[in-house]
């Protein structure tokens, strides 16, 4: 289980990026992390992964996250974290060497499914293919907790559909996916739990099942939570029209 206790993060000692986050999630969950741009989604993930300093406590099965247990976490990001000069085959070799639980069969299967060439440096692939490589590497590292930060940026709708299906198909019951995305509607059928973050604070944490039981949808729930006024645009347009 990953536990965050009063996690705080300030940029340049001034800007509050995270203001006392308390959150925990266990193995086998697919969690969606939602929030506007700058809400703190990426910061939260990077703090968990130890890529940013923070105040508070983050524990993995009761232990601080260090080099000893960090391989239990993987990270796929829209910033990309693959090695651009390495081929897919070389990535597999590198991952197999450094991550003992690297899922070779899954890796080959996914590379084959997306028709990714194994012998070309990843930098020579298209942006869409590079995004696929990024997600595949995160999925195949052999981690228990897979963090994906906006992994579908630049993917077309068909590609995203394929990924959602594949995720559901390939994940083992012990694998957790922590997925940050803006595509709320698309991932509704994929995730078990939705965590909403705003200005560095968690403002909602709900099971998708519960929302559905109430006869609502995730999008409606999020809109309600954020106080989204659906007539905002029409009111503004009416105002522009009346002033001209």
């Amino acid at each position: 289980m990953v536990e965050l206790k009063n996690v705080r993060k300030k940029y340049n000692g001034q800007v509050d990026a995270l203001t006392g986050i308390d959150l925990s999630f266990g193995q086998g969950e697919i969690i969606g992390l939602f929030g506007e741009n700058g809400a703190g989604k990426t910061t939260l993930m990077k703090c968990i992964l130890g890529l940013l300093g923070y105040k508070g406590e983050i524990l993995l099965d009761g232990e601080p996250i260090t080099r000893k247990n960090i391989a239990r976490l993987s990270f796929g990001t829209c910033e990309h974290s693959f090695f651009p000069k390495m081929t897919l085959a070389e990535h597999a070799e590198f991952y197999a060497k450094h991550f003992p639980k690297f899922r070779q069969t899954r890796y080959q299967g996914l590379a084959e499914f997306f028709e990714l060439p194994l012998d070309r440096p990843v930098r020579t692939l298209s942006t869409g293919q590079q995004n696929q490589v990024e997600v595949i590497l995160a999925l195949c590292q052999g981690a228990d907790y897979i963090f994906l930060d906006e992994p579908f940026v630049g993917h077309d709708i068909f590609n995203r559909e394929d990924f959602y299906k594949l995720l559901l198909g390939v994940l083992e019951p012990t694998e957790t996916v922590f997925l940050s995305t803006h595509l709320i509607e698309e991932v509704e059928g994929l995730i078990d739990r939705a965590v909403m973050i705003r200005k560095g604070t968690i403002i909602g944490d709900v099971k998708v099942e519960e929302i559905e039981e109430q006869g609502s949808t995730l999008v409606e729930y999020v809109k309600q939570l954020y106080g989204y006024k659906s007539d905002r645009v029409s009111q503004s347009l009416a105002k522009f029209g009346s002033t001209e």
Partner: protein
Amino acid sequence: MIALALAFGLLWMAATSTAFLSRYRNQSPDENIYREVDTFWNGRWTTTREPVKIASLNSLMEGVFRLLPLQVLLAAVLAGMNYLSFYYPTRSIYVMKRLRSRWELHRRCLAFPIFWILVCVAVCVILGSIYCHMYFHNTVPGRIPDGVSLNIWRTLAW
């Protein structure tokens, strides 16, 4: 690109060091060259013959390895570029930070530059030894100045 520059630099460094050979040859070290010296001894002038001393080892070796610091600098630049390559164009540093061994990143960034510096130092040591050997064993006895020593820092001087 940097690797090419390093290889070229090594050749250049070796070539530059041959300045010693031309300086040394100009001293005609293998010839018996004498000069006559008039000395006043026991109330009268006498003329004696003394072997002409060749230049000191320090002056012959001055600056012959002056490109070594440049090689070290290039290797340091290469190490810096290696580190940067984990931040740009992708953030592969995120993967490196998830590795069990914290030294893997440094190994990948520093191994070649350090190896290269060692190669360059080894080349300098070998060439320097050859030059010193030539100086002491190829020169006609008596033409080597008294108390010859080598100040290594002067070989690096510009």
